[in-house]
């Protein structure tokens, strides 16, 4: 008898502030072990294949510049995409927010005479909670990506952009299939190949009979009106090819000016995300093609807070993200807490700058979920300066009264040289008993607010001013 399935998301409160949620996650040893193993594996693979290309840095520079250009020309590119996709037979819709996008998608499903859809893994549809909306209006959405299927069967929430079930190991996945998949084979082992086979059998009939599919897109090419979906398993190809009706929900930031720009992004994305030279399958389609694939093709261009991000000169670079998840895999914070603690569909470093911008006023604690070590910036294939945006958002965000008072006090002292010198002297004298140890573990309140999660270094015996004065003599 396999153990009872306890979804991680049921233990880690989604609405709690990050420090609280993170503390719960840190107390789950199996979760931490699974994350450390998986992120360690992918880090090594990524470094290996990125290192193979001697033009990796020029590629990053170009990708960052193309994305900046797209942001500056967003209205014209969106209209160009709409014109070309429409000319190729697609129906292009616009959605201001999640509710509008979900309503349009549900209407299309109904008009197609269906009450269920198969889904390609898509961050945009997670962001707008399409599955939940569909369920509320009596439609069913079946996830077909292996990791999404695992999460859906476990009644859990995704914890990673690329591998939503990264927090489960093979044995736990076996248990989930065994207990929650009606047609799971008897005696299923935890061999990854056996688990993949079980998923194939489970979904095959559904793929071959589905009337409607819902997807996102990795890229939307303005010049041709084409959409691009990058995947591994073939579930994407199944959804994009077999049904009669296809609905793709695409964030407006996914636009690329021209088809040839794919020569940049399709080198960077697979190497950064799964650490492969190329992902097994990439599908490109432009409207509808007679006799080949869906004939009723819809594209929903989604805003849902993106134009708000666009308005922030520093913050808008977050819209360059191509959802590779390399920043999650190198982040020392993510590796220890996992994705659920962030309380948003975009976790990790990119989530820490995207979530508070997409939903202003919420997630203001996320820009602090970072040590500003900068590893995320180094691996980002589109060179988003995540630490810069984190600091920017910290400055913009709300500050507690205590912190404001402390900073106000510090400012008053620092603005008066004699006061500042006296304060330094007092600190040197006051910390004398700890000089040998070099740091203080605990300060009395209100200083304890600072030392609860940090050590306070003891001021040096001689400060720079004294040293300089001495040297001048």
């Amino acid at each position, binding site marked *: 008898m396999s153990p009872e399935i306890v979804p991680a998301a049921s233990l880690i409160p989604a609405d709690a502030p990050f420090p609280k949620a993170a503390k719960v996650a840190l107390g789950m040893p199996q979760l931490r072990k699974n994350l450390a193993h998986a992120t360690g594996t992918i880090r090594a693979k990524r470094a290996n294949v990125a290192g193979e290309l001697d033009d990796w840095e020029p590629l990053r520079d170009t990708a960052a510049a193309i994305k900046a250009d797209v942001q500056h020309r967003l209205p014209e590119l969106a209209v160009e995409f709409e014109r070309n996709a429409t000319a190729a037979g697609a129906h292009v819709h616009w959605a201001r927010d999640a509710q509008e996008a979900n309503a349009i998608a549900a209407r299309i499903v109904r008009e197609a005479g269906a009450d269920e859809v198969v889904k390609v893994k898509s961050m945009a549809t997670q962001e707008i909670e399409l599955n939940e909306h569909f369920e509320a209006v009596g439609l069913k959405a079946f996830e077909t990506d292996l990791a999404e299927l695992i999460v859906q069967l476990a009644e859990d929430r995704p914890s990673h952009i690329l591998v939503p079930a990264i927090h489960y190991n093979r044995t736990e996945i076996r248990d989930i299939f065994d207990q929650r998949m009606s047609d799971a084979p008897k005696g299923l082992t935890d061999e990854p190949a056996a688990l993949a086979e079980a998923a194939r059998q489970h979904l095959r009939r559904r793929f*071959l009979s589905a009337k409607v599919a819902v997807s996102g897109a990795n890229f939307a090419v303005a010049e041709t009106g084409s959409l691009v979906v990058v995947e591994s398993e073939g579930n994407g190809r199944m959804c994009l090819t077999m049904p009669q009706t296809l609905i793709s929900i695409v964030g407006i930031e996914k636009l690329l000016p021209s*088809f040839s720009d794919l020569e940049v992004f399709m080198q960077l994305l697979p190497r950064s995300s799964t650490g492969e030279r190329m992902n097994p399958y990439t599908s490109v389609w432009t409207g509808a093609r007679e006799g080949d*694939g869906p004939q009723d093709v819809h594209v929903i261009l989604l805003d849902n807070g993106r134009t708000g991000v666009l308005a922030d000169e520093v913050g808008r670079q977050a819209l360059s993200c191509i959802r590779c998840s390399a920043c999650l895999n190198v982040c020392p914070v993510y590796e220890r807490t996992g994705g659920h603690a962030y309380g948003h569909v975009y976790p990790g470093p990119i989530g820490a700058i995207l979530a508070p911008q997409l939903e202003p006023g919420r997630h203001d604690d996320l820009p602090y979920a970072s040590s500003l070590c900068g590893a995320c910036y180094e691996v980002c294939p589109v060179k988003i300066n995540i630490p810069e945006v984190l600091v920017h958002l910290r400055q913009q965000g709300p500050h507690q009264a205590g912190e404001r008072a402390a900073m106000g006090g510090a400012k008053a002292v620092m603005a008066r040289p004699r006061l500042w010198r006296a304060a330094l002297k007092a600190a040197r004298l006051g910390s004398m008993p700890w000089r040998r140890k070099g740091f203080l573990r605990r300060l009395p309140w209100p200083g304890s607010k600072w030392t609860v999660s940090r050590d306070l270094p003891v001021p040096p015996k001689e400060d720079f001013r004294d040293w300089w004065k001495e040297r001048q003599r």
Partner: protein
Amino acid sequence: MSATPTAREEILARMRRALDGAGEAPVPPREYRRSLETGADITAMLIDRLVDYKANVHHGLASIAAALGDAQRVVVPADLPEDWRLGGAEFVPDTELSTADLDGMDAVLTGCAAAVAVSGTIMLDAGAAQGRRAITLVPDHHVVVVRRDQIVGHLAEALPMLDRTAPQTWISGPSATSDIELQRVEGVHGPRRLDVVLLED
């Protein structure tokens, strides 16, 4: 014109407002590589990548029969060259086959539009000898013929060879997943066996 703006009008207006005073972004630099060093053995590199993906590689027209293995029924695009239909299998041209028909096929035999050595990628664009997307997806075994002149070193060289607005599938090895502990496992929903037949000029 109605008083309430449509979603389209409103989103475009929001974009313009957000970009007010943002000016223009600089023209992107293009310092990256667009081809391999001259003299690189691109066929050897392609084979190396394909084998790494656990695809099987064969040489010459006659090896098509071996690549098909013991497949009994093989779907082919209606315009597949006659002299590629080698071996003892029954070759079924795709003239309005149903999904169920395709599901009953043991294999599919097609050509391709281009192949990229650096990443081991074979590209289909619904052109000559390739057929519609479903035929290379539903059967569990795909045999694809690549002519020497279709192999290029670099992705940037392959893109101009494609019909840009035709439905495309770029294939790099058989179906795989990395969703369990981030280890690559071959064989999920797409064809679990990929055989590549290389034709010399």
